[in-house]
């Protein structure tokens, strides 16, 4: 799918849709619509979730789903306030997301509800609870 087709598909589920360069689309969705958006993408045969990125931006944490769409890349953003860091798992839509969500949970402290295997991924077993290494409050 090219960028224009992606924009047509995603604009029902997201605001602030931007085309960047020739092949990338950035869009911001919200907690009510992101599962519908990801399901719609999957149903359009876009099954490759490149990864999930978490970005600590102070009061909010941005979660970005990077979806490979053939000849373009969609970066679908979901902003979560730090007071309510809970999302639903997307492993039922993209089974390949299983490690990325574990990464997100341990590195940024986002709670992923319904994850089939919510253990730690990289951090050691004796790692203290509630310390998330990629958060801004963790200083050198």
């Amino acid at each position: 799918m090219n960028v224009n087709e992606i924009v047509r598909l995603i604009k029902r589920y997201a605001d602030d849709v931007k085309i960047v360069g020739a092949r990338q689309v950035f869009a911001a969705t919200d907690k009510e619509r992101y599962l519908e958006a990801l399901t719609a993408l999957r149903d359009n045969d876009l099954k490759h979730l490149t990864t999930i990125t978490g970005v600590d931006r102070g009061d909010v944490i941005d979660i970005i789903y990077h979806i490979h769409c053939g000849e373009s890349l969609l970066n679908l953003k979901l902003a979560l306030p730090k007071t309510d860091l809970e999302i639903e798992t997307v492993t039922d839509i993209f089974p390949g997301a299983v490690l990325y969500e574990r990464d997100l949970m341990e590195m940024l402290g986002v709670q992923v509800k319904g994850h089939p295997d919510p253990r730690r991924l990289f951090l050691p077993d004796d790692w203290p609870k509630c310390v998330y290494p990629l958060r801004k409050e963790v200083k050198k």
Partner: protein
Amino acid sequence: MTFIIPIGPQHPALEEPTHIRVEVKGEEIVGVDLRLGYVHRGIEKALTERPYAHGFYLAQRVCGICNATHSLAFTRAVESVAGVECPDRARYIRVIDGELERIHSHLLWAGIAAHEIGFTTLFMLFWRDREHALDMRELLFGQRIYATGTYLGGARVDIEQKHIPQLIRALAELEKSTKHYIDVCTSDRTVIARCAGIGVLTKKEARELCAAGPTARASGVDFDIRRDDPYAAYDEIRFDVVTERNGDVLAKVVVRLREILESVEIIRQAIDAMPKGPIRAKFPENVLENEAVGRVEAPRGELMYYVRSNGTNKPERVRIRTPSYANWPSIRPMLVGGTIAEIPIVVASIDPCFSCTDRVTIVDAKTGKARIVTKDELRRLRK
């Protein structure tokens, strides 16, 4: 009744540490569990504490085998963030750099695969011919392993005309021997007995588990970033995306060997089409607030860097998704249903790169301070 066999973190099958718990029922594997993190170094965090020019060298060191593609992916993302255009000649230098790396990485892997199935002669032959690619990296970019032609805003070094004849000769050698290896691997009884029909990943599984690179292409998934999201000069070069249908270990061998032939052809085209001119554009010290994703096709598959800048000379956030990280979930369907003896070659067949996957930082819970744990402390922790 099932029985659990723990393998690793240190084990003779692979040269990097991981812990695999294999659940067996007699000889048959019924479950697999992985424990990663033994070589986690905190690179994503460390990249945000360094200026872009320093981060470039750190990104290059995420992986010791595909360092050229790591520097290229980082550069691609950072150049998009800063809005810097790379000069034409440098785009071709990047192609030659990336493809030489693919050749040496695939031959390195093929050698390890031959070693895993106990075919030591083939292992030595693969590694003998890998030297051609390493010699060319040394000749063109200054080092056998940690060499890269890329730099922020262009190329690090120019390719000199006097080195081209040597490069062309090395390519001819590589082409000849790779064609021979394809014949060997598709006809030799030992290779077929150990690789055909083993560790199968179906196309459906490969797509669902978001596999990348040769692991996905051996299962018939037609997906290559060089074609789908072209960077450097790949949009001006003709090449085929190699796919196989069977999804077994043999298909993964054949895909990689055929990709070497494509790489040889790509380098030849790049040599012919390379324009003259400057090799580097100026890269600004501070980068305005922006964000971008840079993807390249590493030897192991799609490699992604996400960079967010904040107006300073250091990035706000860097996210790295390496191809081995994407391919780990595929290990389970490849192992389950097989036998214990297949574990080394099946695990090796995704060409796993542990240092690529593991990246983290050490934080003191009481003070919230990050620090590095010494080897002595680690020893004490274990007791």
